[in-house]
């Protein structure tokens, strides 16, 4: 949704990362999904670059 429209609408939020940010949003009564985020390829940099290479092929 365009940003200027968003300012006039209820926020519907997808959160990824620090859990307490999502919890604070829930406490404020905001509709939020807290993603169970994990680093790609368990954070292995070689595999991440391999995946990026294959993503663009």
């Amino acid at each position, binding site marked *: 949704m365009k940003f200027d429209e968003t300012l006039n609408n209820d926020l519907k939020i997808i959160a990824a990362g620090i859990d307490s940010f999502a919890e604070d949003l829930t406490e404020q009564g905001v509709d939020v999904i807290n993603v169970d985020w*994990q680093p*790609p*390829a*368990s954070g292995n940099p070689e*595999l991440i670059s*391999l*995946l990026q*290479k*294959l*993503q663009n*092929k």
Partner: protein
Amino acid sequence: MKIEDANKLALERLELSEPILIDLKQAIDVVPDMKSNRIHHAGPPIDWEEMSGPMRGSIIGTAILEGLVKSEEEADEAIKNGDIELGSNHDHGTVGPMAGPVGATTPVFVVKNNHHGNLAYSPVHEGLGKVLSMGNYSENVLDNLRFVRDVLQPIISKVLNRMGGIPLNPLMSEAIVRGDELHNRCKAGTCMFVEQMVPHLLHVTNKEEFVEVFEFLTTNPQTFLQPVMAACKATLDSASGIEGSTLLTCYSRNGSTVGLRMSGTGNKWFIAKAPMIKGLYMPGYSEEDACPDLGDSAITEVAGLGAMVMAGSPAMTLLVGGSASQAASYTMDMYDITMTESKIIRLPSLDFRGAPLGVDVRKVVETGISTKHNTAIAHREPGIGMIGAGIVEAPMEVFTEALLELSKKLEK
């Protein structure tokens, strides 16, 4: 070809597949490369010396059954000096349960993928308890297999020919709706499968034969697993070898190693050590007694059945803790690593959402979520048989190795 286009084509092949059970024949008549002194087994190829207990037992039993040898010692010698040749089922269009032994006269279901014309094979499920596929080659077990070869095979062959084949997609679809996951649980499918054959069976058997065959097929709730496995193999093989595709086309285990194949890397095996299985053990047994992961039946999950559709099989939920939401979360995880949803297999418990279909090896590596496989657990010693059931995860390294290989291929 771009990876996305290659995968699109591979998925199209999966979706257009139409596996039909057309016959039950002796392996030598249909299985590629099969000859009188050859024995095929489950999983990726493996040396005789490296084989697990159940795998060795099953090969010895098959050699005896085929009349190639009379004892374990003779079998050992014949294999070592090359008089008996060994090979992998998957390399020959075949999938077998557990050790999955297939000799020259072993009857195999023949499944034809009607849309693409390719064939796949799978031996008859022997039943529960003491069986050759778990490494037991006692006289009772061999007798049971002689019955399969001498009595069952010609009769079922006639039945299937009379019927003009049995389309398997509709049967599998309904079995799932009736609560099977079509790997560890094939009860509903077995009922429907036998039910369809009964009128024809009556035509080609006398009373005594009918009772024998009927009892054999119905007392074993896993009878339907073998046509299903062959259907999965026929479907996946049609999507194999597409340049650039990251579709998972095969995952299989021989009790010592596991092997993976990906469409874009064709028939190349990516191999790792077979993991142990977490599960429920029969009274008196524990993980210490278990053989590492074993069998070609993991093909069911690769094709979108088994653990992939745990959400749809109420009775299987106990394998994952007992609640419906636990079972559902297993299937939900699989949507994170698959490319599409099945139009054939639909899950009532997920409001008839299509089953997760088409594992993308890239997504497995990216998310760290591996494929999960329901499985029976064999005793590590030959002859004892099944000692439990459980769930096992494919090791991540085979997925990453496949991707590395593909990346190398694409750079060339």
